């Protein structure tokens, strides 16, 4: 790596200082506070008492909502990340073709990404209303259905809609990550494959997928983290109702901390969530650092 002349040994650290101060104060401190609270007794009024060991964790895990919430979180992350990766990949393949209106199509794909999640979620919340939602309205007016359909009959279906909205807003990110990977592939690979008589599927599995794998990995790991932490969609559409049945860890944690004033169990859940994220990001860091060295 070529570097410029640095006259004083401490100089680089001065350059880093503002960034370090900012991140320490607003990222590291909150982490420490959360860890401290998770092991402390906290009264309903928010007064922090002494060390209570794992009592908060026991309370959090023993709550009847904990099991379903963890299952929901799992379904949420797997379905949203999995399907948006699949669909995003297909869309990137399509957008990588030459066709009329390609620039317009690429701009349109960006739209959901650029919109605030709370706004997207509000719109979809309106769309799927039974009595006056826009989906029924459009389908009735186009003559596709004869009667209004209740699109949110049960909470399972509502949760599926939430996953759908999650997928909808996540696709653009995957598409653009894969697209940048696709564009960096040398056309010579495909020419060589064509000369060898490879079919479309062979080209896909032997050239395209291996070469976009790095981009795909990055987008997948980042997505796992973003989606795990996603709050506005579920909070706007169902608020976790009925009885935490559509909550994920993040929305459940928020309700516990700021509605039920149970900061102890809430911070315990934070630590659990934080640990899960750390495992995922640790994995990601190892992969990234490996590539930096290479």
């Amino acid at each position: 790596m070529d570097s410029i002349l640095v006259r004083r040994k401490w100089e680089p650290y001065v350059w880093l200082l503002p960034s370090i101060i900012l991140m320490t104060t607003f990222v590291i401190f909150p982490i420490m506070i959360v860890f401290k609270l998770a092991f402390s007794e906290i009264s309903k009024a928010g007064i922090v008492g002494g060390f209570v060991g794992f009592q908060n964790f026991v309370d959090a895990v023993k709550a009847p909502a904990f099991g379903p919430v963890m299952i929901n979180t799992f379904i949420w992350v797997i379905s949203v990340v999995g399907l948006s990766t699949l669909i995003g990949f297909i869309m990137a393949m399509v957008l990588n073709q030459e066709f009329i209106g390609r620039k317009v199509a690429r701009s349109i794909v960006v739209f959901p990404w650029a919109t605030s999640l709370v706004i997207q979620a509000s719109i979809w919340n309106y769309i799927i209303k039974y009595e006056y939602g826009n989906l029924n309205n459009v389908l009735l007016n186009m003559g596709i259905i004869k009667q209004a359909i209740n699109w949110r009959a049960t909470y399972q279906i509502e949760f599926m809609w939430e996953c759908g909205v999650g997928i909808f807003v996540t696709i653009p990110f995957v598409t653009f990550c894969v697209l940048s990977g696709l564009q960096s592939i040398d056309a010579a690979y495909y020419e060589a494959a064509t000369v060898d008589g490879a079919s479309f599927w062979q080209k896909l599995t032997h050239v395209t997928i291996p070469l976009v794998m790095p981009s795909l990995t990055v987008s997948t790991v980042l997505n796992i983290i973003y989606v795990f932490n996603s709050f506005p969609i579920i909070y706007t559409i169902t608020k976790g109702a009925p009885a935490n049945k559509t909550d994920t860890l993040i929305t459940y944690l928020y309700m516990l901390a700021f509605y039920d004033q149970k900061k102890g169990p809430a911070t315990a859940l934070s630590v659990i969530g934080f640990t899960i994220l750390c495992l995922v990001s640790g994995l990601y860091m190892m992969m990234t650092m490996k590539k930096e060295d290479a």
Partner: protein
Amino acid sequence: MKTVSSGDVLKKNRRALVLAVIMLALALVLLSLPAYEFDATLYTKRSGNTFVGDERYAKAMEEVEAVAESYRQQGYEVSVSEQVTERVNSKGETTSMITFSIGSAKTYRAWDFLGAGLPSSKILTVVLLCAAGSLVLMLLGLRGGMATPHYALKGASARMRVIACALAFIAVLLVPVFAMVNTHSFSREVTLFLSNMGGEAAPALMQKIGEFLYGGVEADQLPELLKGVTYHTTWALWALIPVLFVLLCSLIVLAKGELGPTLARGGLYVFIIAMSLLILYPFYVMFITAFRGNAETTDMYFLHMLPTKWIWSNMKDIVERGVLRYLMNSIVLSVGATTIAMLCGIPAAYAMARMKFKGKNVFLGFVIMSQMFSPVVLLVGISQLMNALHLNDTIIGLMLINAAFNQAFAIWLLRGTFLSISSEMEQAACIDGCNTVQALVRILLPMAAPGIVTTLIFVFINAWNEYTISTVLISTPANKPITVGITQFSSFNMIEWQYLFASALLATVPVIILFMCIEKHLAAGLTSGGVKG
């Protein structure tokens, strides 16, 4: 170009031609089969405490038959049906009720719609014209020679074959449209009419429907008759779609010689159009709802695809309710967060890209790790910290949080940009006596401008769209950014959708424009320079 013998071409074209003619004939057959089955209940009579075969039954039956006869005399084709409901009453006796109904069931072929003057009649006419036109053009196009490969065809006959394809394509597309328009007329419009919400054209349409179904009835009888109408579409109509599609395929073979590439191309465009429509759909909803009147947003029967009246004053109303204040807060918040993130991020990225020092890898790891920490999982910690710093409920607090959590991304993206620029110029400047600050400001920053702008906009948008932290930290209405501010229009039992979406529109449009500006750079930045891959 593959060489094709004229014999092969002749064989292929002949096969395609035969197939096309068969499909056209099949289409004509399908049009003559029943396409719709209508059931209408004209009259019902309930007879309580009646058993099949007893005296009351015979009496009621007689009465019903008399009514049916009077309908027959009016020219209806009617049939009488009965439904028996048995129940055990409180004394343990079995009672039974019989419901007699006089219904008229009728099937209609597609041809019947042609002269009916219904909205779908026009569409069917176009379908038929297209099918016939494609046949004629195909035959005309064949004069170019059956044995000539498509690329050797003369201009006129090649063009005719292509136009024949286009006509067949339109015919395929219009069949489902025909079915949709019928559903709209016979179901949606009828429902609107019966609840007195039809438009000005509704009575005329209902008259047409009355003529079509009952051969002309008095206007005052119509609502009663239409109430009981149910119908379903038969398979014959749906079978028309694959038949016309096969016709299209054979025409493509005649025009282009090969089917695969054309279909793949067509599939590509279908996919893109469908995708674009789906993506734009929520934005369409946001836009039209933002300009609806209050009553219209929550009344399904009132709703049409566009507002019946565009209420532009919704914008004025939300301004009166303080949306400008929220927008202003969002601007201050995003600009502040971006500035802080860049002021801290640029020097750090510069050091990371250009200097050698101990602990560089530790910092690198720290940056990658912190990229993973979403503020959401740390909500409780952040709110406690803000309390301690007395930054709770302030925009400055939000700025700092947003800047801190975007720091990692900013450093990553900027470092990638700096690394992609050769350091020779700076090295030369340093030898000439420039210090590192001057090298950065005068030489590197201007060269790295595109990357810096991309980072800047991305951080700006992240801060602009952030919702969760703001909703926890901000309680004073005057300090709310727009994402939190719009929720004031939704309370527990009532949501003022038109205001919610009008403000959402104001919050969304500028960001989408900004995002479209950096879209091209972002794709590259995300994986190569920034969020490293």
